[in-house]
């Protein structure tokens, strides 16, 4: 089981600073969630963790190894994988090719066939559409493929950015079922999710990100009970 520590991260776009020293810890085998309103900087934080954006200050530690300056593909090779917001599929590649690209890290290649069977077990719809171009899938199917592609890399730490976006209520239930299953297999995960209610229900630990700073942190159960969280994020 792998852990991830994000220490006092600062980053942003051009001159505009978005993150102001955010710190987050993902315990080994634990599911952690980050709450925050639109524009709080959740996606920016995830992009900085994987290296799509450079960290201006602070560190990212993977099992105590400093990986802050590694490029995204080097981090994926180490098992740190993000299922990005908005799917970001290879639209001109087939479903099967998207999955194959998911298994690029060396530790994932040898078992690619078996992993493909596994994700087809989770998403039978994808099995039916193997040879179809990813760009022609329905929104829900595309989201399934994005998640399946992430699983293909045999991640040690898997981060989701808004995975239920565009999914029907039924597919959202399926998604959370899959997340629970991965949790039972002790995969370390980070979940950013608009469906705060469900996210808090499955998570072990929770953070609240406000204007680039972590303002609340604690066990998910406790965070769920907090007055401020209930008002701002659960609409209660």
């Amino acid at each position, binding site marked *: 089981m792998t852990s991830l520590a994000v220490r006092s991260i600062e980053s942003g776009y051009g001159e505009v600073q978005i993150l102001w020293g955010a710190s987050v810890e993902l315990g080994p085998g634990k599911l952690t969630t980050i709450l925050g309103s639109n524009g709080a900087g959740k996606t920016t934080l995830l992009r900085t963790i994987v290296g799509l954006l450079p960290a201006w200050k602070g560190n990212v530690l993977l099992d105590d190894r400093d990986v802050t300056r590694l490029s995204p593909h080097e981090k*994926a090779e180490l098992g740190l*994988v993000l299922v990005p917001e908005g799917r970001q599929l*290879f639209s001109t590649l087939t479903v099967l090719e998207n999955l194959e690209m998911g298994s*690029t890290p060396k530790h994932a290649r040898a078992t690619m066939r078996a992993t493909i069977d596994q994700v087809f077990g989770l998403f039978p719809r994808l099995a039916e559409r193997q040879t179809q171009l990813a760009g022609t899938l329905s929104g829900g199917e595309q989201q399934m493929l994005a998640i399946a592609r992430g699983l293909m890399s045999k991640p040690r730490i898997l981060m989701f950015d808004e995975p239920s976006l565009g999914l029907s209520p039924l597919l959202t239930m399926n998604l959370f079922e899959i997340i629970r299953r991965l949790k039972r297999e002790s995969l370390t995960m980070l979940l950013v999710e608009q469906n705060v209610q469900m996210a808090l229900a499955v998570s072990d630990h929770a953070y609240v990100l406000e204007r680039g700073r972590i303002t609340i942190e604690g066990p998910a159960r406790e965070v769920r009970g907090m007055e401020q969280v209930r008002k701002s994020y659960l609409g209660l």
Partner: protein
Amino acid sequence: MSLEALLPSAIDGLMLGFVYGLAALGLTLIFGVMKVINLSHGPIIALGMFAVFILFSGFGVNPYLGVLAAALVGLLLGVAIYFVAVDRVINATELTTLLATFSVNLMIIGVATVIFTTSPRSIDIDLGALRAGNVTILGTHGVAVAVAILVAAALYGFLFRTRPGKSIRAVANNRAAAELMGIDSRRMLALAFGIGTALAMTSGALLATLFSFTILSGGTYELKSFVIVVLGGLGNPTGALVGGLVIGLLEGVLTVFIPVAWVPVVEYVIFVAVLLLRPAGLLGARA
């Protein structure tokens, strides 16, 4: 004008079209993958010609082995050009990448002109000919077509059947997502540039077995490549192959009616007309 007189030059042009298509394939691959218009394309074609020439006249190497050598040198040269000139400006505006590859063009032409001078060269090979009626197909032309088809097929096999090929397509489609999946996108861009360069050099090498040439001959074929690529849709490999055949055929037929010197003019007109009327190319944009 009778069909009988037209047929031989039509066939000749069509066959040449395969070799043009190969050069255009290199140009369009580089553009399709990294949105860089490679202005060093022409000089690289000329280097392909001279690679075969040097090996043949200097060392007695069979010209077709020379073609193979040109392809390999092209791959290495392309990777080197990518890291020296293109990588540093890959995220810059299109004008910047144009200038970067144009400076490579100037460097190659400058150095190669000093070494090779601009005097015409040719490679003397005779593979006989095939005759049917008034149609004559030279052996060298037949082999050039066969090699071009083989290389194009190999490229498709590579892009659609191998992991590096699929990775190049993934990077072309979404570089950030490719990185997230563990693909070293910089390496894939360098490889794609290398392959594009290898295609241009191969095409030049084949042309050297057909016609005489100078170090400046690449320019003519660069123009043809641009016309073909625009005709077939920028970044579309199949379009480049079809466009190559169209331009080859057109050239073959045109030269029956008008002086050869006018052919580039017609090609320019087509180029501008397509850009104005069908900017996505006659075959339409790639999905």
